[in-house]
């Protein structure tokens, strides 16, 4: 049974995919086939993941030829990621049942359902691959399938551009991965991950560093770390929202999975500068991610940039774990790794929730620009609530889940004080300031996203006519909101599970830090009592306290104050008779202080065009345009592309059309080679 669960769940995805394709003539049926089967499969996936985490590694070898062997190995780490995947897939699939109605009659639903399911299978296989060749195949398959999903609405110019950028970037990444795996493979003489594990640590320093750098670039491209992130804000918004949720929630996590696999499992985190480099990149990614997110008014692009930010936060944890491992502090490493893994789980949950929320907003308003939304909280109260939960989670407010993982990350940063290397300690501590800045900017960003998108008056006719989304969409979001809360207030259980995942990787457990204390039994707090007590929180208790206080206040108001209902009136608008949406503060204005603050990074440009009617005192219209520059695209990628183009154009001149020149090439080649022989002979 236990052995078959994996096969069964993959098979159900597969059946869903094929059924959707066969039923493509009937939109409704193929929707059901694709998404119901996916949600069933994901439940089995969750059960499977649980059995592995609590039991033994699952492995399976497919019969294959002598060159290509396909074997799957699901250890606890893989199982943890399968769990994340299945959880997200479950909610998103339910959400999708109604969401895809948008495309009925316009697009081929069967094709979408097919790709959706196969895409999930490819991710499952990526996580469970036990062999480099198989890994590369499924990895690239995942990229290609997600590319197809990104270009699903390929009639749009932007989508095509995004698709192209995505496939190229991801392929560049794959190139680096290939190089790093091939180095490992040629050293170990085998493609199996097991042999990588045994030979990885004994590689020569040069090769080891090469493997690290290649893996960092390769997987970093998929994860979207700066400066390899440029595809992400284009590709994620271009895909249908349910797919964006999967891409952002799960797909980029496969890179995190491989980071852990390669850096810890294969290479043993054996070099100090690896961890430090990764920490710096992670911190920069998180800050730049959120900074660019702030400037976005396209809700999905905004969320995509937040993925960069959160990947940064996850990697802060992981890189600190690498540093601790290097210094031989397994318990501290365990804490940091748990922080990273916990945030991975959290990010998967709240980011998919937010993407589903964004999808709902777009579903109802048919625009992605938050400047054209507004007032949705009254039209779509449930979506608003769920989006708010997602927002509070992502900006790490207690008692929701983001807080727990950020707290753990802060704690692991603080515990670097136990390291003996002063410089490293200072760097790690300083990254804490970066994380704090990230947190504050993220809060601002979601205050903007929620405040402008959902609150006040509708800002356009689109928003005026918005209606609440269908039930299954709400159900999908509701589920994830619940998950946000549960992961937030019951971290003690979650940490136990993640702890058992991280024990094989870093070789130490922190479950002793989970003290069982409390009025309510089994609602303990988590404490970082690593080697000496450091800090503790109990989100369970924070939640209880807040709930209690809110109830107490409501009771006090009811009992102590005279019963008076509120008087409804206009918002005060400086004496203007009627308040319209045009009086409201816009998203652009909201984030303007930040834009001015970081002007050197944003390099914003504004363009004001005023037209006058009679004289220059009578303005008939003012057109204001402002945009920021993507520094990396302009200063890193554009020169590379320009150089390639120039070189290519020059190189193309050799094919001049002249047959005489062509023969001359042969002549010269022949002469050069003969000279070479001659020189060799003398």
């Amino acid at each position, binding site marked *: 049974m236990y052995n078959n669960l994996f096969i069964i769940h993959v098979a159900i995805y597969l059946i869903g995919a094929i059924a959707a394709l066969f039923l493509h003539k009937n939109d409704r049926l193929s929707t059901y086939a694709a998404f119901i089967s996916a949600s069933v499969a994901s439940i089995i996936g969750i059960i499977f993941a649980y059995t592995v985490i609590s039991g033994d590694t699952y492995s399976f070898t497919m019969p294959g030829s002598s060159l290509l062997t396909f074997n799957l190995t699901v250890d606890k780490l893989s199982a943890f990621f399968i769990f994340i995947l299945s959880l997200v897939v479950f909610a998103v699939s339910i959400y999708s049942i109604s969401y895809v109605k948008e495309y009925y009659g316009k697009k081929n639903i069967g094709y979408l359902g097919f790709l959706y399911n196969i895409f999930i299978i490819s991710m499952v296989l990526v996580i469970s691959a036990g062999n480099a060749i198989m890994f590369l195949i499924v990895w690239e398959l995942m990229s290609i399938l997600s590319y197809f999903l990104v270009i699903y609405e390929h009639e749009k110019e932007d989508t095509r551009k995004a698709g192209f950028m995505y496939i190229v970037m991801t392929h560049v990444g794959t190139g680096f991965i290939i190089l790093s795996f091939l180095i490992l493979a040629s050293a170990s003489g085998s493609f199996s991950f097991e042999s990588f594990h045994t030979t990885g640590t004994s590689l020569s320093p040069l090769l080891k560093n090469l493997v690290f750098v290649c893996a960092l670039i390769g997987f970093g491209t998929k994860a979207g770390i700066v400066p390899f992130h440029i595809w992400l804000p284009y590709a994620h918004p271009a895909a249908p929202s349910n797919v964006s949720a999967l891409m952002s929630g799960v797909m980029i996590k496969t890179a995190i999975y491989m980071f852990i696999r390669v850096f810890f499992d294969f290479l043993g985190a054996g070099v100090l500068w690896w961890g430090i480099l990764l920490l710096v990149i992670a911190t920069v990614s998180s800050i730049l991610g959120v900074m660019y997110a702030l400037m976005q008014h396209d809700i999905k692009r905004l969320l995509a940039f937040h993925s960069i930010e959160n990947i940064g936060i996850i990697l802060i944890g992981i890189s600190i774990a690498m540093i601790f491992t290097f210094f031989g502090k397994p318990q501290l490493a365990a804490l940091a790794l748990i922080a990273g893994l916990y945030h991975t789980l959290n990010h998967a949950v709240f980011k998919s929730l937010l993407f589903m929320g964004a999808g709902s907003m777009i579903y109802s308003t048919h625009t992605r620009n938050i400047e054209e939304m507004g007032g949705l909280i009254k039209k779509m109260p449930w979506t608003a609530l769920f989006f708010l939960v997602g927002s509070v989670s992502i900006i790490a407010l207690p008692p929701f889940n983001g807080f727990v993982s950020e707290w753990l990350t802060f704690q692991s940063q603080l515990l670097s004080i136990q390291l003996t290397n002063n410089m490293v300690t200072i760097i790690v501590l300083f990254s804490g300031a970066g994380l704090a800045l990230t947190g504050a900017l993220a809060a601002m960003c979601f205050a903007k996203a929620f405040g402008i998108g959902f609150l006040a008056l509708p800002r356009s006719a689109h928003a005026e006519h918005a209606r609440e989304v269908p039930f299954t969409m709400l159900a999908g979001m509701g589920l994830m909101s619940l998950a946000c809360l549960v992961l937030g207030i019951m971290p003690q259980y979650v940490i136990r599970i993640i702890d058992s995942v991280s024990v094989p990787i870093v070789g130490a457990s922190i479950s002793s830090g989970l003290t069982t204390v409390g009025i309510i039994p089994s609602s303990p707090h988590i404490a970082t009592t690593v080697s000496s007590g450091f800090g503790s929180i109990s989100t369970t208790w924070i939640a209880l*306290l807040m709930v209690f206080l809110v109830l107490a206040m409501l009771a006090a108001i009811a009992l102590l104050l005279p019963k008076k209902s509120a008087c409804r009136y206009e918002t005060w608008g400086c004496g203007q008779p009627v308040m319209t949406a045009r009086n409201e503060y816009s998203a652009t204005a909201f984030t303007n*202080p930040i834009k001015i603050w970081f002007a050197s990074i944003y390099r914003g440009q504004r363009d004001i065009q005023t037209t006058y009617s009679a004289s220059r005192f009578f303005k008939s219209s003012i057109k204001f345009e402002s945009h920021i520059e993507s520094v990396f695209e302009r200063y890193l990628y554009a020169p590379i592309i320009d150089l390639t183009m120039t070189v290519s154009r020059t190189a193309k001149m050799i094919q001049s059309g002249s047959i005489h020149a062509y023969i001359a090439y042969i002549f010269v080649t022949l002469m050069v080679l003969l000279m070479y022989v001659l020189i060799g002979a003398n």
Partner: protein
Amino acid sequence: MFTDLFSNLGSTATSIIMVIAQVFLIILLAPLLTGISKKTKAFFQLRKGPGIFQTYSDLAKLFKKEHVVSHTASWIFSATPIISFAAILSAGLMIPIYTTSLPFGFAGDIIAVIYLFAVARFFVVLVGLDTGSAFGGMGSSREMFVAALVEPAMMLSIFAVAISAGSTNLGEIAQTASASGLGAISPAYLFAVVAFFIIIIAETGRIPVDNPSTHLELTMIHEAMLLEYSGRQLAIIELATMMKQLLVFSLFANIFFPWGIWSGTGFDTGIVTISAITISIIVYLAKIAIIAVCVAISETLTAKWRMFRLTDLLSTSLILSFLSIVSFIIARGV
């Protein structure tokens, strides 16, 4: 089965008493602090000014008045006063006021406290946007901007404190600092004090960051967001703001100047305990009054800064915190 939680204190009952005492202390002292601060400012501005208990009367009056809610506003508007009050008060239970043995000290450390404050801030910011007023939006935007400036500096100064105390839980920090007496004073300590002082000014919305008593919309930050509130809702949220101010001052007082705070382990020693607690409370009152006066003086001496100059102020704090950390690490001599 309850013994773990209250092992330090003996019994559930005493803990409950202590929690209730702390809650009431916070709620009751908060307006007083504002009163002291206003009085001091009036003194230096050569005005007579309202009495230090005036704030109580203001609040009482507000509770009685009817409240007006905008058509535009959603449930966020009504929920925010309660949420922010609850969040700040929860944070208050994790901050040492008169004792370092906090019943809920385990439930949240300084990071949790800051994030609880952030909960309150986030909802207030949403309210600024909820009413649709341009001033609200402006206030929200600025509030978040200032928060973004403060946060890194604050986190670093907290790190500075936490690494020297070896804990992030406030009770323990206070206890460690108080136990080491004047020996706690070191270069690291001094840097951290100055850094944190700048932060409390920013965090409590004082001049030169924000002017709590301004009524010119274009210069307001915090007040602009609350512009649409009236009656009991305004009272609750004002009280919450005052509580936050008290708590930030207490943080400063009990982390950096914890001397005199009661760090006993129970009530079993009878009369001695009670006198110790009394002393502790009196010392505490003195400390926060002095801080309030100091803040008021510094407020009187400076003018409100242009918003984009604040980066300078807070980067000063950031650098000081950084220096504090560095000097601590170097001083540990590993």
